[in-house]
């Protein structure tokens, strides 16, 4: 080790633009994952237009709307949390993240009751009641469970993602000057929200 290289040894490479870019690319792949499902939805909606309409009427629009409001609010709290951290208010930032997580859990609880109500009526993939319905309705419920289920999985992943970043804020490794991890977690959360914004009208509103 010669002397003139000594100063290079402590240089820490940091590239926030690169980190955000990586996250956007990842979100792009998530969109395409759901894109495949939206494609399938479009094909079958076109093929079974009447059956889809009838099946959609059995979904509870109020619960769906409530969940939409919950998720939209959680997107607001996560955005505010980033702003709070940028302004150096660590405790407010953490509090807003806790609120986001509470809203996410509320969304899942709502979803749980919604699904279990359907289960009680005997409507779930492979059930006898469902198999006796016309093909279009079987497919509608198949898509409903797969797409909202996949979305629910993403809510849980987002919840974990936000919680990990919250710990980082707490320990100080994510802070006023280095907050790209929080931004990326926020981006992920907005994606989860955005996908729901499309799922909600496709399943609950178009009747």
């Amino acid at each position, binding site marked *: 080790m010669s002397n003139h290289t000594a100063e290079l*040894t402590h240089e820490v490479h940091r590239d926030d633009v*690169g980190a955000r*870019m990586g996250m956007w690319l990842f979100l792009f*792949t998530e969109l395409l994952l759901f894109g495949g499902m939206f494609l*399938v939805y479009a094909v*079958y909606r076109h093929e079974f237009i009447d059956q889809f309409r009838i099946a959609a009427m059995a979904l509870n629009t109020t619960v769906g709307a409530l969940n939409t409001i919950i998720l939209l609010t959680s997107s607001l709290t996560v955005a505010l949390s980033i702003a709070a951290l940028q302004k150096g208010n660590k405790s407010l930032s953490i509090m807003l993240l806790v609120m986001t997580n509470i809203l996410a859990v509320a969304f899942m609880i709502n979803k749980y009751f919604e699904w279990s109500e359907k289960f009680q009526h005997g409507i779930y993939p492979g059930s006898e009641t469902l198999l006796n319905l016309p*093909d279009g309705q079987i497919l509608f419920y*198949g898509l409903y469970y797969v797409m909202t289920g996949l979305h629910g999985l993403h809510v849980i992943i987002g919840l974990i993602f936000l919680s990990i970043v919250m710990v980082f804020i707490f320990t100080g490794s994510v802070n006023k000057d280095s907050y790209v991890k929080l931004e990326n977690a926020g981006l992920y959360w907005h994606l989860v929200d955005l996908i729901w914004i499309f799922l909600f009208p496709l399943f609950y509103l178009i009747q």
Partner: protein
Amino acid sequence: MANSTIAISEKSYLEEGTTKKASGIASWLFSTDHKRIGIMYLITISAFFFIGVLLGVLMRLELIAPGETIMDAQTYNVIFTLHGVIMIFLFIIPGIPAVFGNFFLPLQLGAKDVAFPRLNLLSFWIYLIGAALVLISLFVQGGPIDTGWTFYIPYSVRTNTNVSLAIFAAFVLGFSSILTGLNFVTTVHRLRAPGMSYFKMPLFVWSTYATAWIQVIATPVVGITILLVILERYFGVGIFDPALGGDPILFQHMFWIYSHPAVYIMILPAMGVVSEIIPTFARRTIFGYRAIAMSSLAIAFIGYLVWAHHMFTSGMSQTATIIFSFLTFLVALPSAIKVFNWVATMYKGSIDPKPPFLWVMSFIFLFTIGGLTGLVLGALVTDIHVHDTYFVVAHFHYVMFGGTGTIFFAALYYWFPKITGKMYNIKIATIGAALFFIAFNTLYFPKFILGYMGMPRRYYDYLPEFTNLQIISTIGSWLMLITIVLIMYNLLSAFFNGKKSEANPWGGVTLEWHTDSPPPLENFHEIPEVTKEPYDFSQLKTMKHVPKGEEYE
């Protein structure tokens, strides 16, 4: 986010890692150094390649005579499925990008590492998990998957073999591929050396960049398709199941929306390697640099829109088949642009036929046959005649094995001195390249004729009139096995006991040749500044490392 607290020293990456411990297996398995990760991929991928080869040899042995020879029909189904799954998901898709992309992308860009080194290690770990799942699926209850590597529904839902685990492995491997892709895209955008504008990047970087985009864009679609098949098997969701109103053709569409672009994930990096090797051994700057760079992007783009040519006989609408046939012809154009530019580069060059160059020559020959027979399959009328016959098998082996496989070896021979600092036996390498060419054509050319005569693919039995050609093909498979063993022996013995190589034995001028061989941990002793075009051989006058006998005053 690179590991950056490591001092720059005279040691190579083989002697000094990113982990606290300097040696031992852990210093490799937990290393975030792109070069070590590349080597680990090389070892795993080569091992799976060899398993795939052995399975292929077994299939050929079964086909040496009509009727049951060494295995029953079900075993044959399992073996051709495994041969496909291993060769495609574990060898050829990750092959060049994960091994040589990892190793040389940062070097050619003049960077210290990829953009996300820890993510890079995670990709490798995910790859290992996926590979382990494939192996586990062979031994758990239900038996190995027997659907063919395309997992077509409804059979993949009805069969009792272990489909779910095997295709979940493909899902996991896809995840690894996505992470590698987004890592490379970000690397190219963010970590180019000072002075390296987009049009001063080496062409291997361009093609790896285009590949990385396909990995990011196409892989999620097969991910969701695979998840749907698994859900279909466990819960009977009905999306692809005709009994519940679903549509199996939709599965084929969604499968090929990924799997056709995946073909370009396989071939594009190989084309990039060719664009590196030809200028170096012809001592001429590449002809049509921009045309080659842009044709990579064109292939990535058009390649995304041709998937349904795998399904001409599936009962799609006539209009759709005509459009997809047209687009298929269109995608041949950028490939042809590349071939013409490569040949033009060699014109009036000072050609030095060393082993890497010989491999490239056999690539151009085999790939041209593979590409042109692709047009036979892309045309609607002829496709119906040869659909699902050995003609298709021969076509994609010429493109995939003759194309990407050949270049995998070419890249190994070209960059071996760079990776290890050792030199292999040139004479054995030359014999290996020649033997490969003979073995390859003996093995696969008869399949074109067999297919044209009507021999269907994936059958373990055949009519007696096909016997002679099948025997020739089987003899070819033995020759191929011998050749591959010879190649592996040559490289391994060079690695362990080989002579020390010069730092730049071929006189390459792209950035990886500007540093030592093997490179130090952070690649360059000082960050290079790029002023010249990538294939400007006047750089040899000022470079630190030049081949013996080419020193300038």
